[in-house]
């Protein structure tokens, strides 16, 4: 189980990650939601041992003891899909999987089974022998994800896995993540799309400028920081917005006074949560 304990990381004067603490729970998809430059990738890089924290500790807490991801042996049970595609373009998808499988100690029929399973997972079985440079962007994304799980890790870290893919491929990736959760993996999922966090993540950590702003389940975050929802109604006078925590009562109230031609309720979402927490929109 991944633990961040008051972790900070600076690049020169910039505190890319500032006093970040959280603890993953078994079998959850954990979201790191924040705008560009929030420090998500920096946090992931510390989780996998690529970067060493300046302050605090990152560790995998077993029942028995703590393990530092900076040590090679301790990285055995984690898989990373980096934000930018990291594949050998000159060799085939299957060969990429085979290579990284061998690095994790897989051999013979075990290896071939895992390669086949991962190709199937990424829906790339038909093109397994094609070189990666001939893959479409979406195919490369899926392979980038598949390589992360070739060794069947306990903890999978996905750094913005849907960047640059069309809505269809995006849905395909969501399904993969859900499959991982159903298989009992822990997943850390970074994104700056609140819809993704809302749909996929059991708990979401909202970070901004390296700082943890809030951490909870999506409903709890909305309840705590979402504020009232908005009822949008269209009448003969035009369109109007009404903040409300009880949309039915508000609608009844409005209808009593004039004819409502059309209405829409916009419940508070993570976007409003972020706005309320930081005073800024998630995407400006």
């Amino acid at each position: 189980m991944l633990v961040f304990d008051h972790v900070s990381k600076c690049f020169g004067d910039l505190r890319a990650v500032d006093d970040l603490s959280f603890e993953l729970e078994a079998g959850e998809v954990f979201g790191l939601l924040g705008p560009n430059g929030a420090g998500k990738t920096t946090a992931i890089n510390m989780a996998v041992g690529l970067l060493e924290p300046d302050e605090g500790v990152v560790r995998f807490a077993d029942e028995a003891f703590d393990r530092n991801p900076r040590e090679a042996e301790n990285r055995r049970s984690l898989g990373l899909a980096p934000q930018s595609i990291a594949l050998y373009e000159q060799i085939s998808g299957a060969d990429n999987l085979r290579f990284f499988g061998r690095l994790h100690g897989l051999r013979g029929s075990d290896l071939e089974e895992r390669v086949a399973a991962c190709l199937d997972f990424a829906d790339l079985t038909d093109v397994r022998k094609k070189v990666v440079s001939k893959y479409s962007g979406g195919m490369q994304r899926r392979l980038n994800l598949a390589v992360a799980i070739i060794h069947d890790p306990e903890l999978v870290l996905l750094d913005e896995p849907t960047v640059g893919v069309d809505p269809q491929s995006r849905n395909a990736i969501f399904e993969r993540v859900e499959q991982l959760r159903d298989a009992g993996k822990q997943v850390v999922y970074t994104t700056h799309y609140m819809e993704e966090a809302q749909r996929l993540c059991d708990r979401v950590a909202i970070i901004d400028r390296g700082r943890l702003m809030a951490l909870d389940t999506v409903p709890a975050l909305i309840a705590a920081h979402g504020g009232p929802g908005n009822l949008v109604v269209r009448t003969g006078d035009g369109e109007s917005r009404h903040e409300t925590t009880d949309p039915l009562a508000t609608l009844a109230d409005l209808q009593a006074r004039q004819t409502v031609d059309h209405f829409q309720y916009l419940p508070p979402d993570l976007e409003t949560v972020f706005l309320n927490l930081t005073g800024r929109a998630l995407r400006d």
Partner: protein
Amino acid sequence: MNKIVAMAAKDIHILFRDKLGFFFTIFFPLMMAIFFGAMFAGLSRGPASIPIALVDADRTAGSARFVGRLETAGGLAIERIPGDQALEQVRRGQTAVLVTLRPGFGAALDNPFVATPEVEMSVDPTQFAAAGMVRGVLLEAAGAELQEFMSDPSRMSVTNEQNRRLIEEFSPASEARDDLLNVLDQIPRIPVLIDEAGLGSVTTGATGGFGPPLEIEQTQVQAQRRGPTNSYATSFAQAMLWTLIGGSVSFSMSIAIERSRGTLMRLLVAPITARQLLAAKGLACLGATLFTSSALITLGITVFDVTPTSYPLLALALLCGSICFCGIMMVLSVIGRTEQAAAGVGWGIALPFTMLGGGMVPLFLMPEWMQTLGNISPMKWTLMAYEGAIWRGFTLSEMLLPCAVLVAIGVVAFSIGATRLRWDTG
């Protein structure tokens, strides 16, 4: 037009951004400028002396006079050594040329009417340019001898007397004999007659109707073997050196490529240590350079009739050469962190060192300090090891020096590179 300027400006901007790459676009030509500048500066003062070994098999006053003339002429650094050792020295690559004055050399020098002085030149096959220069110096000295002889009636008279006695002793009386003796009488008068005819300035340096003042027989020195010498033997040794250089540069680029493509990050996240990663890169480089250099010489052997003097020593040389260049590869990948920088650094370092190592420009053309510097060139030692096994016929003990140097360079460079290599991904 605006668009063209914008695109050009972008390219220049990017070129300047890659500081190391840019450094090498300046540094590399600068190295070349310094290299050739120093070389030509040396040349205008006369090239550095070509080391030659000289064996005087004649041992007469005449041959000694000739050697003295060579010594004062400049251009040659003459080492007098016994004949058998001299040839060995050329074979080992320590001396470019062995000049042997054949018996009868002095006599021919003092009697150009009867005989031409003969020398033998045994040449290191990689040193033909040096051989050409040595030939020039020899001919010039012999020409000067002849001219001196021709302009000294007293010496000619002495020779004439000898020749007259010879003719009278061995030739039976005949009309031809009398004619010959008559002509002989006239010869000492030639310089005087030339002067009297007012031709003194025109014929300065003329040697009359004589042939070349010196007869030179040139042979290539290779280890004792049957069959004719094979020029591919030398060219393949050079080609093998180039494949090592190319291999080490591409491998240093491959680390930069892994960094820029992000796969280095994946490797670092896998449960392997930095040490294992290094070992893998080293092994891959070793395997690849061993393969390409072996493939080249195999081709040379099977298609071009190159016959190595020792296969076990060849294997040793191949291994040591590859070890050396894998170490160099590691240093190159530390210096060049982007693909362009790695390539720039690689070739920017390889070319000057190859030149200093004698791989491109004959060593004797370089000033002394450059030749000394050449001793630290791994290229020099690689060539020596390859040539030693292919055609110089090195013994195991002769092979030990270059091989030890190569392995030492390789190990030191690899450890420097390995400790300095920053395994970060940015």
